[in-house]
C-alpha cells in the first residue's frame, strides 16, 4: 500500500464510535479511569507477549531440571520466571516430540495463555479456527505450512476451563550450544500454539 494511502477511511468506524461513547459514559460516571485503560493497553501492546513464552521454551530446551518442573507443574515453573497473572493463572505445558504434536484451541470462546503469549492473534479467535482445529487439525496445520507424518500423533487441547496450555515446540537441529537468549529468537508465537514449528537457525 503506498505510504499516502489509508487502510481505512479516516472517518471512525461505527464500532469505534460506540466504544468511545461507552468509555465517555463510564468515565463520567467515575467507573473508569482512562489512564488505567492506557496502562492495560500498554501492558499487552508492549510488555506481555510471546517473548515471555519464548523465554520459557528456550529455558526448557537448555535446562533439563526446569523442563521437568515445567512439565510437572507449569504454573509454578513459569512463575519462577515472573510470568503470572490474568489468563495465565493455571498453566500446563505440553511438549512436542517426534511422536506427538500438540495444538491448542478454545472452541467455545478464545481462551489463551495471555501471561505467556499476550493477546491472541485474529486467526486464533476466528470461527474457522475454532470450528476446524478440533475436527481436522492436520488440515488446519497445512494452512500454516506444517505437514506432519501420519506416524506423528496429533493431540488437540480444547481450553474449556481456566487451564492455559503452552506448547513446547521441538528444538531445531543445529542449535547445540546456543544460549537461551539466542534460542528464544527461534520460538514463534504460532509454534507455542502448536500451529507452527520453531524457526530453523
Amino acid at each position, binding site marked *: 500500500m503506498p505510504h499516502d494511502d489509508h487502510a481505512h477511511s479516516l472517518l471512525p468506524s461505527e464500532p469505534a464510535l460506540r466504544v468511545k461513547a461507552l468509555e465517555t459514559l463510564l468515565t463520567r460516571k467515575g467507573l473508569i479511569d482512562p489512564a488505567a485503560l492506557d496502562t492495560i*493497553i500498554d501492558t499487552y501492546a508492549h510488555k506481555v507477549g510471546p517473548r515471555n513464552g519464548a523465554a520459557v521454551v528456550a529455558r526448557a530446551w537448555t535446562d533439563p531440571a526446569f523442563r521437568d518442573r515445567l512439565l510437572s507443574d507449569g504454573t509454578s515453573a513459569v512463575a519462577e520466571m515472573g510470568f503470572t497473572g490474568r489468563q495465565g493463572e493455571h498453566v500446563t505445558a505440553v511438549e512436542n516430540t517426534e511422536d506427538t504434536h500438540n495444538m491448542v484451541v478454545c472452541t467455545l470462546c478464545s481462551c489463551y495463555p495471555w501471561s505467556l503469549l499476550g493477546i491472541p492473534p485474529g486467526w486464533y479467535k476466528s470461527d474457522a479456527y475454532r470450528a476446524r482445529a478440533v475436527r481436522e487439525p492436520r488440515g488446519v496445520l497445512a494452512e500454516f505450512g506444517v505437514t506432519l507424518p501420519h506416524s506423528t500423533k496429533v493431540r488437540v487441547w480444547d481450553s474449556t476451563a481456566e487451564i492455559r496450555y503452552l506448547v513446547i515446540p521441538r528444538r531445531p537441529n543445529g542449535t547445540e550450544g546456543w544460549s537461551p537468549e539466542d534460542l528464544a529468537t527461534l520460538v514463534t508465537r504460532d509454534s507455542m500454539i502448536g500451529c507452527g514449528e520453531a524457526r530453523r537457525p
Partner: protein
Amino acid sequence: MTRIHDMGGRFGDGPVTPEPEGARVFAEAWHARALALTLASGSLGQWTLDRSRHARERLAPADYATFTYYEKWVAALTDLLVETETITRAELEGGETALSPLAGKRLASDTVPDVLSKGAPTDRRGPPPAFAVGDAVATRRPPRNDRITGGHTRLPAYASGHIGNVIASHGSHVFPDTNAHALGEGPEPLYTVAFSARDLWGPDATQGDEVMLDLWQSYLKPA
C-alpha cells in the same frame, strides 16, 4: 449444539488465515480500547468472568455470527452494565448522568500492573475427586447446564455423549455453570479428559489422534 458459540467441528467455515508473527497486537485502536474497557469494567466486581462469557454467548445468533471479535466484547459488556444496573439505558441513549456509587471501586492506573499480574486463580478447596487418572468416563448428553435452562456450560456439544479417559486431575475449580448465574462458585473437581479423534469425528480423523478437554466432575459419569 447449545448455542451459536458452540462451533467445534462445524463445517462451512473457510480456511484459517495465518498472520505474520510481527503483526500489531491491536489491528485497530478501538480494539485496544474495547479490551481495556472490558477489563477495567470487570474489575468493578459486578459480574464474574463466567458471566461475561455467557453474556457473549447470549448475543443473538445473527449478531454472534457477524460481529467482529471486539464488537462481541463491547456488545456483551454493554448488556452486562445495563443488567447489573451499573449504567442505565437512558444514560446509554445520551440522557443525564451522575457519579456512580461504584466509583470508589474504579480501577486506578497505578494498580493495573498488580491486578493484571495477580490474575484470578480459580482453584478452590472442594469435594474429593470421584475419578482418578486412567479412569474411563462418559460425558453428559445432551450438553446442558442442569441448574439453569439454556445456562452457561463448558461441555461442547461435539464432546457430549462420548467416552474418554482421565489424563489429569486438577483438584477443584470454580464451576462455571453456577458461577455464571450468581449461584455461587460451587467448586468441583476438574479433569483433563482425552478422547479419540476417531470416536468424535469418525474415520476421517487420523487413527491415534486425540482431543483433550478440561471437564468438571458433574459433566462426567463412570463409563
